[in-house]
């Protein structure tokens, strides 16, 4: 299966063009990458593909991740490269972990929503909690993510005890009325 490794390596020049175009949109958020950082990003993507033993048939994921996450309030120029690298790696990892049952856009939608609204920018929480629970749910046969395209899944996957609004009201009444 190592026959696929040269194919991964050779997509570099094509990828550079794609991500340069995607980065033009990121400029409005004061985000940019130097030429060396772009190359490092592509190399990191290639390493992720190799590590997770995936063959990419079109150079669309990295530009999509750039476009979708550049607008996040939790991303700035200091953490931009690192976040893009980690998010890309997570994407391929969890394509495997969900056994390719989840489409590209469903996974990216889930990652974006969780990153911004649940993890508040914490990549470790995104990877080790939200995405792990999602992958486990998909593997066990749950498919409600299909109807929402990977969105609005937080409540279904949450394992933490949260405030019960009705219980709260009852207790308040007991205490103060």
């Amino acid at each position, binding site marked *: 299966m190592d026959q696929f490794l040269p*194919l991964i390596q050779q997509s570099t020049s094509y990828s550079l063009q794609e991500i340069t175009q995607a980065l033009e949109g990121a400029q409005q958020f004061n985000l940019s990458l130097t030429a060396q950082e772009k190359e490092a990003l592509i190399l990191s993507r290639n390493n992720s593909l190799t590590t997770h033993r*995936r*063959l990419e048939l*079109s150079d669309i994921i990295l530009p999509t991740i750039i476009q979708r996450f550049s607008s996040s309030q939790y991303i700035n120029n200091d953490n931009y490269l690192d976040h893009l690298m980690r998010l890309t790696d997570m994407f391929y990892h969890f*394509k495997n972990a969900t056994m390719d049952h989840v*489409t*590209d856009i469903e996974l990216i939608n889930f990652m974006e929503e969780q990153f911004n609204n649940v993890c508040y920018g914490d990549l470790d929480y995104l990877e080790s909690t939200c995405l792990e629970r999602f992958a486990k749910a998909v593997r066990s046969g749950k498919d409600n993510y299909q109807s929402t395209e990977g969105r609005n899944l937080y409540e279904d996957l949450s394992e933490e005890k949260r405030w019960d609004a009705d219980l709260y009201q009852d207790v308040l009444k007991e205490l103060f009325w």
Partner: protein
Amino acid sequence: MDTLQSLLPIIEMMVNKQSSMESTSITFEKAEQYMGAILYTIEVYNQAASSTKTDTTSLLPIDELSLRQQYELGVNQVLQLLKDCQILYGLIVDDFSDYRLRIYRETLIKGFPEFFKRYDPIYNPKDHLLTLDYMPMHLDTSKQGVVLIKDYLTWIHYEKSFLSLWSDPQIMDLLERVMPHYKTDYMDNICYRVLINTAACLMVGKSPSSLFITPEDAQKIQSDYGNHSESQIHELMGYLLDQLTTAYGLFATKGYEKAATYFMKQQTNLTTHFYYALKHKSLSRFLLVQL
């Protein structure tokens, strides 16, 4: 690398079809499976087309077809082979007798419906799924997928037709003589066993319709052929097989064009078995002599 490069667009097409263009990457394992599927399909096409110099469904001579064109024509060929298998299977199960032999029944009656249900001619055409525990007299097991299955069913169809010359009780009786618990324990081919006794009947000049050899028959065979060399026995077996495949007219009908050639393939096996049985004077055991 060049081959892989040229197969990539076809792999991409397969992935797009299967995922409705919703996944832009696949695992290495899947890529390897798809690559195998493409190469197998192209090979099926090339083998079918090699009997004619040009492909009649295309305007281009075959060696001018692109890999993609060969693949797409190959898919049609694989699907056609699958249809041929379904027709052959229908002929086999029509008035099928399993002679109470478990391995024969389980392979053909239980196994093959699963093949037709689960065989994937597009994404995994190489995997014929079945272990084919009951083997015909001859099968080129280097073949794979629907090509192997078509061969298998063709040979079984010929063998079934040959076996139909005798009644079920006759064949079951013969198998019982081979092995009392043959129904569960006999793992060899039924047709070859019948062919041995058929050849012996012809060697003593009697009709093979009874299938059974008496002690006198066995003595006559030993006396007439016991001093023959292996090459003489080989020539004799060739003659007997030729008699068998032409005399009964069984294989003279449409659909049995390759049957005579198939049975002639047993010439060497029969030679070896008869030669050593004669040499070691063990014909009685070999031919299941009936007292």
